[in-house]
């Protein structure tokens, strides 16, 4: 029964609209669904601030997240593979990683501004921090979860180290790497709004848009912007899942 999944959200939405229309929910605190829809229309047609329209905010945000995520994957996956492979490297680096990992990405904002100034690089750096650790840790655990027998198979076939790396280690940890990338991009996307607090020189970005809407007290546009963030998050996850099932057909 697929439609049943949508029944509860729909009922809540109707209830919300009814309560808002009866003024049981003050519009100042929580606009009605219909008002949010109108806010969404304003974001698309007029923009917030005016002239800066929603599609461009989305594009700029995606661009920042793509950069942060790309760097996180490019550093996290190879490093994770090596750390999974070499006990010595893992022992050596684990204390540092365990120290840095619990620091929330947002705590890095002042340092990010100091290092990278205000703009794209700072935001991408914050997103990088959010995405990096899930990718790294899942890659390591992916390597460690490979059946040790597979390494012995490679050994009995006189595999060179290179072969072991590319024919056992990489494919064997791929499912886990994908889990890490999905979690990583999710967290990266979540830190986006905060990352755009570091300042946005261009005047574009969903986080920036929401903060501007707050400044001129447009809760309808704040909520519409939040919903857009949620929806794009779903889209990114779906896209990665599709990519995953294409690349990992054996599972």
């Amino acid at each position, binding site marked *: 029964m697929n439609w049943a999944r949508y029944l509860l959200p729909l009922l809540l939405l109707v209830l919300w609209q009814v309560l808002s229309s009866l003024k049981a929910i003050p519009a100042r605190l929580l606009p009605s669904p219909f008002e949010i829809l109108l806010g969404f229309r304003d974001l698309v047609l007029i923009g917030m601030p005016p002239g800066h329209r929603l599609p461009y905010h989305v594009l700029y945000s995606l661009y920042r997240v793509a950069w942060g995520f790309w760097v996180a994957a490019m550093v996290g996956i190879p490093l994770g593979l090596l750390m999974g492979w070499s006990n010595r490297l893992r022992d050596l680096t684990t204390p540092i990683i365990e120290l840095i990992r619990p620091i929330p990405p947002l705590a890095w904002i002042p340092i990010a501004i100091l290092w990278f100034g205000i703009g794209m690089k700072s935001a991408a750096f914050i997103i990088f921090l959010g995405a990096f650790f899930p990718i790294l840790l899942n890659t390591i655990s992916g390597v460690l979860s490979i059946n040790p027998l597979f390494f012995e198979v490679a*050994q009995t076939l*006189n595999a060179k180290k290179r072969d072991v790396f590319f024919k056992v280690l990489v494919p064997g940890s791929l499912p886990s790497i994908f889990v890490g990338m999905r979690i990583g991009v999710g967290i990266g996307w979540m830190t986006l709004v905060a990352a755009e607090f570091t300042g946005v020189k261009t005047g574009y970005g969903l986080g920036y848009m929401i903060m501007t809407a707050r400044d001129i007290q447009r809760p309808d546009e704040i909520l519409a912007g939040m919903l857009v963030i949620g929806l794009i998050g779903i889209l990114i996850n779906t896209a990665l899942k599709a990519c995953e099932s294409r690349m990992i057909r054996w599972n």
Partner: protein
Amino acid sequence: MTLDISGLTKYFMEEKTATPVSVLNDIHFKVNDGQFVSVVGPSGCGKTTLLRIIAGLEKPSSGRVLLDDREISRDRDRIGLVFQEYALFPWRTTLQNIELGLEMMQVPKKERRSAAMAYIHSFGLNGFEDAYPKALSGGMKQRVAIARTLITNPKVVLMDEPFGSLDSQTRNGLQQFLLNLWQKHKKTILFVTHNVDEAVFLSDHIVILSKRPARILRTSAVTCPRPRDRTSTECNAVRREVLNTLESARTASSHQPEREEIVV
């Protein structure tokens, strides 16, 4: 290729108590060129350790493994090992799994593909070349694993209870299949099993090991003529002999007081 195992001993260090635990005790035997030799013994007796040492996956505590009078070495000799759990790479198709060893030998793609396809045809795997292991039955998986080993043309083929997890119909079929292969390729095969019937049906010689620490109880020649009938009187006589050897070792050792009994 003659495989000569002499004075092989293996200890493990028990980590908690830091005391050495003996697994193999002075193992001597020989597998002549083109022979099929089985090693039988109670489960957990160290048969697998023996194979792993010969395969170069573990080092012996003392003793030597010689291949044609030279110390066996992975760098020089190709030693095939067929694992009990198939150990096919789940991310590779049948064809890719069989090709694996040739890839590592840098054989060009076209050549290794046609070599692997030849195995697929002769191993009855037609139509499954692009299937992933999860889609294969146990018997098919083991045939893929055997093909993966044989395609690299190893000097010796070691097999660690390869049919242990198959149902008896499939098992009998694969035993016959293995015999045909052996007669065609003239390989030297060392086969580990706990199934006496299987050892008698397949082998020229049977090495019977005691329980842990494993030592050789006796080595029997299986003289019944090939092709063999599992139920023939000759085969039964050998089975009885092997089973009696195992049984008398078991009862002899159970008369000795176990350590637990002393504690009680």
